[in-house]
């Protein structure tokens, strides 16, 4: 498939009401181009750029708002200039200076200025919602200064190497517009409601699309911003993007068959299989950054014994998991990091099913097979996780142990993981990916500072790893960080605090007409509608 | 004498239930002459209402079944001709019921029900549209019917008849309701009236009033009436002739005076004795209880309770009604057809003496 990065396309001159090149293909949308139907089974709960944090929200937000920096569509993605034309990092590794481009305007015509960036940080950090956790303790609003109209300076509280990689999630809002539309009574003191009410149905962004209609739980329409500073594919880009929210995967599949452009990645496998054979639809599957772990509670007997953990790691039938439970296109994880992430090392012990090895490990431990009376908890409704549990159950049975499989609603699981006593022996988790840095997987899962969060349900405690992961954050240069993470991966893999089951392939059903799609594995950044065009 | 207006002949009715077949009525003979009031008297469960329902044609079938007999009304056999039955039912015959509390629809003002009786009586069919119109309160000759109702209620001595028409039954006292029911029965000017214990649920004073009203109407319009009651006193007040019923059989028929003065059948006598009287009360009732209709006693149905029962006769031979004297019939093996009244009275007196020392003597009824 053709991959067209925005740099390749020539500058779009802006609104051309008579531009109807696409009229032979699909239904015409707004006057700027063809319409794009995106079908999803998940409804966004908020369209506030400082509140949104899940997949669909991110999709919509980064199409409507511009961040300072943007991800490329490579895997792993690199950073590309966006509102910031260029940037500098100070010698102390904490001071970042961004030069904004001067041709960017908000949808209402206001120019994007440094103070808007400053305001956006402030709004983000004061509302403490959405992606604010990324900068919590790292960036304080008072350390962001608008040096001049187009220069912003940010100083982090400490050296935080992944900082730049987090910036694609910091959306810039139009301060004046937000303030003008903020309700006076709200939870944010002098800021009233901080414009949260208004921003649900309106936008204050500068991005490639403008929010034109939001009908909760039914559809959201965004329309091409003809005055956008960036460039759309020449002539046959998409003018209107309609996000259709359907509850049923069957409906979603139906829409795809009927000619919708793209579906989300949450449909059942079976549905994708069916869609694959449908005319005009292709199913894009790629294992990027979607690791599935089965955490083992390293602070509770018998899982506190590394040999027991390894024995279990040897007992699990990865092959069945990858080929029978899954469709065969997911990767077996080698250590905690997905293979596509930089710093991933091939040089790690990988566990394959091997009962002899398992027995041998078990023999080395202080426990016998009969002590393996464990509990496996998974998120209600995720049949894949249930199947994994059942598989593990029968594998452990073979080893002589036993496993109960339990389901719990997600809200309960986060609750359970907050406390070592309530955390289940084994917990099935998809460790979702945020910013494009190894830190995003390793620190939340394996650093002891993260204990109490569902991301670290193994209650893994290894001082060496703690040190390495801290160093990884404090070291600015990427080439210096690679060996640090390689070492951390090695130790973690040996300690086997989880079954590193797989890196699950992400699927998207896409109409064969759509060109320019490339899965870079980043939540929300797969659906960069302004990069798409009709073939 | 002219033909009776109602003649029930050998009527037998059975009910099919899970316990088996109930042979309730067993060869009931009954006549009502024109302008005459006949009382049908008997204890609970003896089949009075079944008789009335058979005549009115409202016997539920199933489970009821008329196994034999005929019901003649004014020359037509009602059982043979259901159409005639329907016509007669609405136009000529009418009925008053025992329980004033339940014989009025609770959800319509009494006037509405009266109007329906006035206008639809007689099995006239009604279209769906008619039902709808009626429910919306549109009917033909509405005011005429209303006037008739008011007049009738007034004659029933109901204070404020106009207001009463618009009241719901709950708003009326028992006596008032019974008056309304009587008025309703009379609204189509029937010639024959069946009253099934219309005063049983009422106080004596109110009973007295209702009886007075009925008597008045009967005389005024020369109505024929079959009056059902278990109260011999009431029967005595209203009836010209009395039929005593026991266990689905008419055991004795006679003019009111004769029956009271000289009861022939041991059951009639027992019944009379059982009633406390102002003059004194010595009797102590009749032994035993009403028989089981699934397996009624052979022979005379009364024989298991009869103080005069003759073994070998009463428990074996079916009993026939014997005409005694001019206007008297009694179904008892003690008597024979064609006996004069005097003879019969003597037998009765002897029997009474045999049963108890101080039975009432029958000399008062000596002359026919």
């Amino acid at each position, binding site marked *: 498939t053709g991959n067209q990065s925005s740099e390749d396309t020539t500058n779009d001159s802006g609104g051309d009401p008579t531009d109807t090149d696409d009229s032979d293909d699909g239904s015409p949308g707004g006057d700027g181009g063809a319409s794009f139907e995106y079908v999803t089974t998940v409804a966004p*709960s*908020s369209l506030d750029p400082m509140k949104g*944090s899940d997949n669909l929200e991110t999709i919509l937000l980064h199409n409507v708002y511009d961040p300072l920096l943007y991800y490329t569509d490579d895997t792993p993605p690199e950073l590309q200039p966006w509102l910031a034309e260029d940037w500098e990092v100070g010698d102390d590794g904490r001071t970042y200076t961004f030069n904004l481009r001067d041709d960017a305007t908000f949808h209402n015509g206001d120019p994007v200025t440094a103070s808007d960036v400053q305001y956006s940080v402030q709004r983000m950090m004061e509302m*403490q*919602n*959405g992606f*604010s*956790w990324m900068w*919590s*303790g790292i960036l304080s609003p008072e350390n962001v200064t608008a040096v001049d109209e187009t220069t912003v300076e940010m100083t982090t509280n400490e050296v935080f190497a992944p900082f730049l990689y987090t910036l694609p999630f910091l959306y810039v809002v139009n301060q004046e517009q937000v303030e003008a539309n903020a309700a006076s009574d709200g939870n944010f003191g002098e800021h009233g409601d901080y414009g*949260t009410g208004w921003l*649900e149905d309106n936008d204050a962004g500068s991005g490639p699309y403008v929010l034109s209609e939001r009908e*909760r*739980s*039914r559809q959201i329409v965004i329309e091409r911003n003809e005055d956008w500073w960036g460039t759309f594919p020449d002539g046959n880009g998409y003018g209107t993007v309609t996000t259709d929210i359907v*509850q*049923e995967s*069957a*409906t979603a599949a139906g829409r795809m068959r009927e000619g919708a452009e793209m579906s989300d990645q949450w449909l059942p496998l079976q549905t994708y299989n069916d869609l694959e054979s449908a005319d005009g639809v292709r199913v894009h599957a790629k294992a990027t950054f979607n690791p599935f772990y089965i955490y083992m509670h390293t602070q509770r007997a018998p899982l506190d014994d590394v040999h027991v953990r390894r024995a279990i790691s040897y007992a699990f039938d990865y092959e069945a998991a990858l080929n029978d439970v899954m469709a065969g296109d997911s990767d077996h994880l080698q250590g905690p990091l997905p293979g596509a992430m930089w710093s991933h090392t091939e040089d790690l012990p990988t566990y394959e099913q091997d009962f002899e090895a398992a027995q041998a490990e078990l023999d080395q431990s202080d426990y016998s097979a009969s002590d393996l009376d464990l509990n496996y908890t998974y998120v209600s409704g995720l049949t894949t996780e249930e199947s994994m549990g059942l598989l593990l159950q029968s594998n452990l049975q073979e080893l002589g142990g036993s496993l109960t499989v339990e389901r719990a609603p997600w*809200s*309960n699981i*986060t*609750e359970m993981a*907050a406390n070592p006593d309530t955390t289940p022996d084994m917990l099935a988790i998809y460790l979702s990916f945020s910013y494009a840095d190894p830190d995003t997987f390793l620190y*939340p899962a394996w650093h002891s500072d993260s204990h109490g*969060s569902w*991301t670290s349900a193994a209650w893994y405690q290894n001082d060496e790893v703690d040190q390495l992961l801290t160093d990884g954050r404090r070291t600015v240069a990427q080439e210096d960080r690679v060996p640090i993470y390689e070492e951390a991966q090695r130790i973690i893999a040996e300690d086997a605090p989880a079954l590193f089951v797989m890196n699950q392939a992400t699927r998207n059903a896409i109409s064969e007409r759509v060109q320019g799609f490339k899965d870079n594995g980043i939540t929300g950044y797969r659906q960069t509608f302004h990069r798409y065009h009709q073939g | 004498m002219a033909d009776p207006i109602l003649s029930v002949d050998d009527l037998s009715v059975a009910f099919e239930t899970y316990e088996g077949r109930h042979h309730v009525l067993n060869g009931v003979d009954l006549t009502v002459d024109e302008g005459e009031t006949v009382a049908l008297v008997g204890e609970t469960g003896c089949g009075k209402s079944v008789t009335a329902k058979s005549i009115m044609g*409202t016997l539920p079938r199933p489970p009821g079944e008329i196994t034999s007999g005929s019901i003649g009304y004014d020359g037509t056999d009602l059982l043979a001709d259901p159409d005639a039955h*329907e016509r007669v*039912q*609405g*136009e000529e015959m*009418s*009925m008053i*019921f025992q329980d004033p509390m*339940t*014989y*009025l*629809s*609770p*959800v*319509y003002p009494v006037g509405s029900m009266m109007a*329906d*009786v006035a206008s*639809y*009586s*007689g099995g*006239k*069919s*009604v279209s*769906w549209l008619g*039902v709808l119109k*009626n*429910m919306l309160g549109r009917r033909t000759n509405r005011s005429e019917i209303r006037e008739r109702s008011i007049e009738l209620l007034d004659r029933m001595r109901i204070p404020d008849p106009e207001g009463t028409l618009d009241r*719901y039954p*709950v*708003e009326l006292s028992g006596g008032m309701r019974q008056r309304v029911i009587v008025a*309703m*029965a009379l609204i*189509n000017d029937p010639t024959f009236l069946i009253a099934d214990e219309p005063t049983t649920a009422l106080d004596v004073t109110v009973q007295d009033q209702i009886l007075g009203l009925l008597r008045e109407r009967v005389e005024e319009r020369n109505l024929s009436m079959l009056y059902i009651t278990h109260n011999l006193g009431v029967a005595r007040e209203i009836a010209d002739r009395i039929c005593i019923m026991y266990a689905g059989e008419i055991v004795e028929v006679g003019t009111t005076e004769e029956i009271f003065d000289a009861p022939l059948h041991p059951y009639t006598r027992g019944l009379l004795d059982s009633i406390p009287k102002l003059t004194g009360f010595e009797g102590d009732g009749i032994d035993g209880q009403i028989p089981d209709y699934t397996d009624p006693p052979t022979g005379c149905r009364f024989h298991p309770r009869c103080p005069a029962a003759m073994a070998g006769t009463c428990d074996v031979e079916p009993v026939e009604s014997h005409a005694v004297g001019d206007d008297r019939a009694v179904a008892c093996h003690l008597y024979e057809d064609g006996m004069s009244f005097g003879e019969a009275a003597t037998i009765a007196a002897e029997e009474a003496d045999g049963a108890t020392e101080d039975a009432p003597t029958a000399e008062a009824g000596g002359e026919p």
Partner: protein
Amino acid sequence: MGHRSYLIKRGLSTIPMFVGLSVLIFTLARVIPGRPARLALGPRASDEAVQSLRDQMGLDKPLWEQYLDYVGGVVQGDLGQSLISNRNVATDLLEYFPATFELTTLAMIIAIFVGVPLGVIAGQHKDRWPDNASRLFSFFNVSLPPFWAGILLQLVVAFQLGWLPATGRVGDVSPMPIETTGLLLVDSALAFNVPAFVSSSQHLILPAITLSLAPIADIARMTRSSFIEEYDKDYVEGLRTHGIPERLIAYKYVLRRSFASTLTIIGLDYGFLLGSAFVVEIVFSWPGMASYGVEAILQKDINAMVGVTLVVGASFLLVNFVVDVLYGVFDPRVWHEGESQ
């Protein structure tokens, strides 16, 4: 006088019920283990953020104070913020409730229009084949799990025959009617928007039928038994002896009174219907309050959960109030009850 005082009395008596209901639900919601503030902020929120939200939500106050705050809000139409939609629950409910209302009401209408005649026919032919058939039909209906019935209908009518859409509330029509009542059928009819009307009716049919199955059965059974009971009453016999045509007896007298009994069942069934809507909306992806409620309950979105349950309870109380009023219309005796007791 009877009518008015009965109405007022009956109306007033729902107030304590409503208060009781709100206390019950509120307490239930607050004793749920779990940290709503943390849930609200997402898994990666910092502790300070959580604490400040707790303060905002007043979660550290004593329960009764929270309750009073809540009631204060409810009175002003503020049901609190939903964690999953980030909006005031009242706003959410305004959006979702009409869909549920449309669905449940249509289901109830179907149930009444099918159930009552079915019951009458059965009652008139007691113990004969129409009665037995209706009985069997009723049993089948009440025994069908609504979610399964929905799935079967989808399988056959939508997937196999392709006659009706399987899920959703309206197809791709444009323009969508402007929202006035929130009831799509009504809105599209008001706007003479034929495609929207057709599409939304098509979408309504399967879920409404699914929902109506159990109440059809209940209503039919109740109508039948009260019809038979009423038919057995003395006054019916009275009317018959007066030669009143059977049709008039059955439909003017008997049905009216027995419909009053049926009404009580209708009131009760409306509650069950709202309950079944919780699964049926899921099956048919009906964007109504019930699916919102299920989500809220599973996600422990306390305000949403309390809001949904309150609205469900309140609708139930309201419907039963209406039923009681109608009962009086069909059986005027109740007007008099207040006076003579």
